[in-house]
């Protein structure tokens, strides 16, 4: 039945799909990047529709705001131009596309088997919301926060280490190589 939710869903969904298709169609990577940003924004809207406020905010801030900016910077740095049409691999077309289609069809089949028109139901939430203020909406920072620091503390800490490693890796990998080989012991001192 038609409701605001459905209209909004369809609107955001259309934007997302259009952005995804445009990413495929465009030849210049910057256009693809901008399309991807549009997809992410639309998805943030979807999250909001699902009641995941915190996730929506993080999506915009981190994904669209940091990661995609990183992509754009890289495109700018490397001066990426339009894509050349090179003959790459027959396998990718002959095996990959059918594989992808097959996978999609399978998933679609599963989804359709189990789908009904049941809406996202309301009801009790499974996590304990004991530490949460009474008026808090599930999905808000007040509810996600305690989860992050209680049940999911270990993954939280590990991901912080992961980010540290990523930082170090990115710095090392992307830095300019030294122009001359590093000096060995005993070298660099004239006679």
């Amino acid at each position, binding site marked *: 039945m038609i409701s605001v939710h459905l209209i909004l869903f369809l609107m955001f969904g259309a934007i997302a799909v259009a952005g995804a298709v445009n990413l495929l169609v465009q030849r210049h990577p910057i256009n693809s990047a901008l399309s991807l940003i549009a997809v992410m924004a639309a998805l943030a809207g979807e999250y909001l529709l699902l009641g995941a406020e915190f996730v929506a905010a993080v999506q915009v801030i981190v994904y669209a705001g940091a990661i995609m900016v990183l992509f754009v910077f890289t495109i700018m740095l490397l001066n990426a131009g339009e894509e050349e049409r090179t003959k*790459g*691999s*027959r*396998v*990718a*077309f*002959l*095996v*990959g*596309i*059918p*594989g*992808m289609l*097959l*996978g999609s069809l*399978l*998933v679609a*089949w*599963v989804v359709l088997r189990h789908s009904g028109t049941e809406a996202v139901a309301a009801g009790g939430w499974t996590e304990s919301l004991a530490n949460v203020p009474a008026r808090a909406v599930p999905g808000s920072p007040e509810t996600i926060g305690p989860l992050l620091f209680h049940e999911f503390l270990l993954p939280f800490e590990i991901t912080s280490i992961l980010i540290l490693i990523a930082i170090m890796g990115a710095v090392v990998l992307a830095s300019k190589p030294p122009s001359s080989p590093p000096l060995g012991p005993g070298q660099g001192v004239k006679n």
Partner: protein
Amino acid sequence: MTETLNLWLIPVLPLAGAAINGFLGKKSSRTAVSTIALVFSGAAFAWALTVAWRLSSVTLPHQEFFVNNERLAHWIRSGSFSADFAFYLDQLSLVMLLVVTGVGFLIHIYSVGYMWEDAGYYRFFSYLNLFMFFMLTLVLANNYLLMFIGWEGVGLASYLLIGFWFTKDSAASAGKKAFIVNRIGDFGFLIGLFLIIQRFGSLNFTEVFSKVQPYAAETAGAGLLTAIGILLMVGACGKSAQIPLYVWLPDAMEGPTPVSALIHAATMVTAGVYMVARSHVIFERAPIALTVVAIIGTLTALFAATIGITQTDIKKVLAYSTVSQLGYMFMACGVGAFSAGIFHLMTHAFFKGLLFLGAGSVIHAVGGEQDMRKMGGLRSYIPWTTAVMGVATLAIAGIPPFAGFWSKDEILWKAFSSEHGSWIFWLIGVITAFITSFYMFRLLFMTFAGDYRGAKVDEHGHASHGHGHDGHGHGEPHESPAVMLIPLMILAVLSIFGGLVGIGNGFEHFLAPVFGTGPEAATAAGEPAGRGTEFLLMGVSILVALSGAVLAWILYVSSPYLPKKIAASLGSFYDAVLNKYYVDEIYAKLFVKPLVDGSTSILWQGVDRKVIDDTVNNAADGARHVSDEVRHMQSGNLRSYAGWIAAGAAVVIAYMIWLGVR
């Protein structure tokens, strides 16, 4: 359990000697080596004598475990089948024991002198002691399987000793021939053993024979016992050189003479007779098998004797004589007179051992020459040897009161009178006795009578084509040293008096607890009537033996030109006999060549090359071809990888969905 006799010492002492000499002998002095060998084989003989001495204190048959420890003696315990290292003593094995250890010890002493100059001195004594170990195991075993170990082991020792001078091609080939022909016989033996296991569930003598006892004699036709009997006889044919597997024995003369004496006259070749005698319970209930044994024995006796007439090598004559005498023993067993066969085995060990050792003495005297045509007149040079050879010849010819007469006459009488016997066997036996006497006296006269026809022994001690390694560089034939003569004397005494135990059926009664009341009982019942016939036949044998001697005298002493004329008039028949009826050539053409050709073309080219090698090569090639195709997947092209990943992911999703749907 009665008190123990420590029977295990008897085989194990020579084994210890063999091990010591084998491992340490190379660096030891000749004296040390000979001391070890003599001490250990002498100790075995001494212990055998003690066992005989204490015979009255144990009940026979007496069984013992190795080291008298049942757990140590465990060998095979598999389901209901068991075989142990256990020993069995009864009158039969006692006789064999004394013969093997006694004659063996004497030959050890003799070999000290005979082999003194040989470079492989320690090896010889090691092998000789090893042979004693295996032979004693064979004789003392309480089950067929342990006996078979001894059987194979003496075959091994025989191979090692025949091919003792292995650098000589003919010796090496002779060793191989002996072993291979033996194995052919062993094949039959083994199948017989399998049949015994299958039907009676055991290989233990007491168990098997007690299970066979209730069987009735298979007079109606061939049955299981007949099959077993014939198969066991096949094995005996191989080991004891009967037709058709006798061909290895003449070639075995390539080995040193003491080896020929010990192994191919006195002990190893008699293993077949012992085995048949031990299995008498089976044979008595299978008349067809018994007849087969008798026929083979008789034919072999005659056949080999005829070949012996023409041979010129002194050892070859004795070899064919051995084959012939073994035929007599089998003839005895075949007519049911097992104790007579064993009696002849014993006396044969004495006089044949003496003959071989004496021949060795002769060969030693003439510096390695073995061709009798180049001998003669040696009686003045080597009187002692002449004397003992004369005694031995009288014994083997069957002239009373020497040992051979008693045993051979017993066999002939039983061949005639026993219920399994027939006058045909007797007649052929008598003819063979005539021929035996003839060729033995021929040997005696050619070697010792007349004038010396040989070349002067040169400085290096080689006559024309020195077969042996025993020259001293003297100018003319000389007597052997005392260490060789004393065993000859002892054997000569045994050859003279050894047969007297047979008077009045003494030997038969001694072995009666073993062989029971079989066909002998029938003859005992009919004895009063047969007494006269027995003496008549005895007279015929004596006459025949004497006439053989006389004929030999005529042909080789008084009218030496006659043999050539007779040979010429017989023409190609004589040639055939001289060439051993071309049996070796026939075998080569019929069996050996097809086997070798078949092996080459089918097994080697066909199976080994085409099937096995090609399978391996083709597998490798196939792997290479497959990987040649598959490696195209690793192209380095990122998008190909991406394609494959997408496809693979789809497959995995499909699988998981299928799992979920199922």
